């Protein structure tokens, strides 16, 4: 498969600060690809180099077979960009922004349909400054989608939004992929990456330290699984110790914590419980998330 975006050995420094040290990655058609990492890891710089809005110091970039710098004009017609923390004129009306953007491209979508799709039809005549954070982001997405681009770049698009607005944006992004558009996004929210992305690249200090689907990364770096259940049976811990894939069984009072690793572990525990006839009142499993993978790989949590 030919990648839509191919980056190899990208490097960019600002003065003596290295923003991007060495980044190589490929993004394929129709996927949501996430570049994840803490603030200052080089996410935005990488993305802006790929969009053609920043000149890299080294490395090669190809987007839809074009060079983002040399073919900037041709590329702008085929990609949509949502910048982090870039605003619009305070007193521009929603429809005016959409109208201006529509006038800049040869082939565009109907503005009413687009505003409706993004839930902005009631805000057509509102000034930009009166929109909520979520509405502003939805407008930016609308502007990025106005010319039906083949690739959309979304930089930190839910930062600062409340959970409800965040979820609304997530379903929009999934909808964009549903229409066959490739999405390249950055986020420092692991939950967002896990919910949205088909594949992620973890970036730290300007280098990609891991790349794959969220499930792959969890499986590879955090195979440990935990089952927690409650039972009145007092000898549960001893009976489970060392059975099957169980590595450690601990119990305090009525609550037992069973640890193990691998895909078979949870099934094993269920089978043992059934075989031993243990009466269980509550049961839950704890499966590591991308957040745990990140913590393990970087040695620190992600900070806002």
């Amino acid at each position, binding site marked *: 498969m030919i990648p839509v975006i191919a980056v190899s050995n990208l490097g960019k420094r600002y003065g003596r600060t290295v923003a991007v040290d060495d980044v190589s990655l490929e993004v394929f058609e129709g996927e949501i690809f996430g570049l994840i990492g803490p603030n200052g890891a080089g996410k935005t710089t990488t993305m802006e180099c790929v*969009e053609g*809005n920043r000149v890299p110091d080294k490395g090669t970039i190809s987007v839809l077979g074009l060079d983002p710098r040399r073919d900037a*004009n041709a590329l*702008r*017609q085929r990609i949509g*960009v949502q*910048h982090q*923390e*870039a*605003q*619009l*004129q*305070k*007193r*521009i009306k929603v429809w*005016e922004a959409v*109208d*201006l*953007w529509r*006038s*800049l*491209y040869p082939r565009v979508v109907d503005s009413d349909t687009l505003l409706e799709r993004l839930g902005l039809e009631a805000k057509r005549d509102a*000034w930009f400054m009166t929109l909520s954070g979520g509405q502003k982001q939805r407008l930016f997405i609308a502007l990025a989608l106005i010319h039906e681009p083949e690739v959309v770049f979304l930089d930190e698009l839910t930062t600062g939004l409340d959970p409800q607005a965040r979820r609304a944006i997530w379903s929009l992004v999934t909808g964009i992929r549903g229409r066959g558009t490739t999405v390249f996004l950055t986020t420092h929210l692991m939950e967002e990456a896990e919910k949205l992305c088909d594949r992620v690249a973890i970036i730290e200090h300007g280098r990609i330290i891991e790349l794959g689907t969220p499930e792959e990364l969890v499986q590879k770096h955090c195979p440990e699984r935990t089952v927690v259940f409650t039972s009145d049976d007092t000898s549960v811990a001893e009976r489970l110790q060392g059975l099957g894939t169980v590595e450690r069984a601990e119990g305090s009072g009525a609550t037992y914590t069973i640890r193990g690793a691998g895909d078979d572990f949870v099934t094993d525990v269920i089978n043992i419980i059934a075989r031993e006839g243990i009466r269980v009142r509550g049961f839950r499993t704890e499966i590591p998330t991308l957040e745990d993978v990140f913590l393990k790989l970087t040695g620190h949590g992600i900070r806002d």
Partner: protein
Amino acid sequence: MRPQFLRGFWKLTWLETKIFVREPMGFVGALVMPLLVFIVFGRAFGASKPVTAPKVDIPFNVAILAAVLIAISAVQSLVAIISIYREGGILKRLRSTPLSPVTIMGAQVAVKLVFTVISLTLLMLAGRRLFPGVLQVNVFSFTVAVLLGTFSILSLGFVIASLVPTARFAQVISAAVLYPMLALSGLFFPVDRFPRALRAFAYLLPTTHAVALLQGVWDGSGWGAHWVNVAALLVLFAVYTALSTKVFRWE
């Protein structure tokens, strides 16, 4: 094929005009202030002059002061808008569309020129009404001279806008640069009587040449007598524009 520059130009200019009008302070600064200066000062000077003094002298410098103020307020407004747009990432957002950089800046300049012309027209109308028979100047010639001066001062405004670090400083810095320029322009004290070094410096500023040209147009000596000032305004425009394209930052 349409030139690249025109793509989105009229739409953006019209949009920026509407946005400018929606901002009450900018609107007042551009249209009301110079007019107020003209009327208040015109009256004050008119009243203090003896009746025997040649009437033509009374609103003479005041009209030029008002015209230069119009140009300066256009520049201040441009510097403020550019720094606010840069700080808010608006320039960055516009830049990543197919709009060419020249179009983005050209639309801002066009808006300023439109309001300069409107403001001048108001000034002329007020002059006709308040000081009848005094404003015998060729309106067209005067307008062209003001626009030429505005262009040149605007290009200096771009240099200021490139160097101003934040929107908060924009107003302060542009005032700190523009008002002393006005003081050195020859409007209040004749440039010939400045010390040598100061005179040389004054001739490097577009305001000095704009004032000289306006005075020439006003007293009827005409464009021919002031070709040096016209040339100076054009050269300064070219120099400042070249400089600002070198130092301009989009974000």
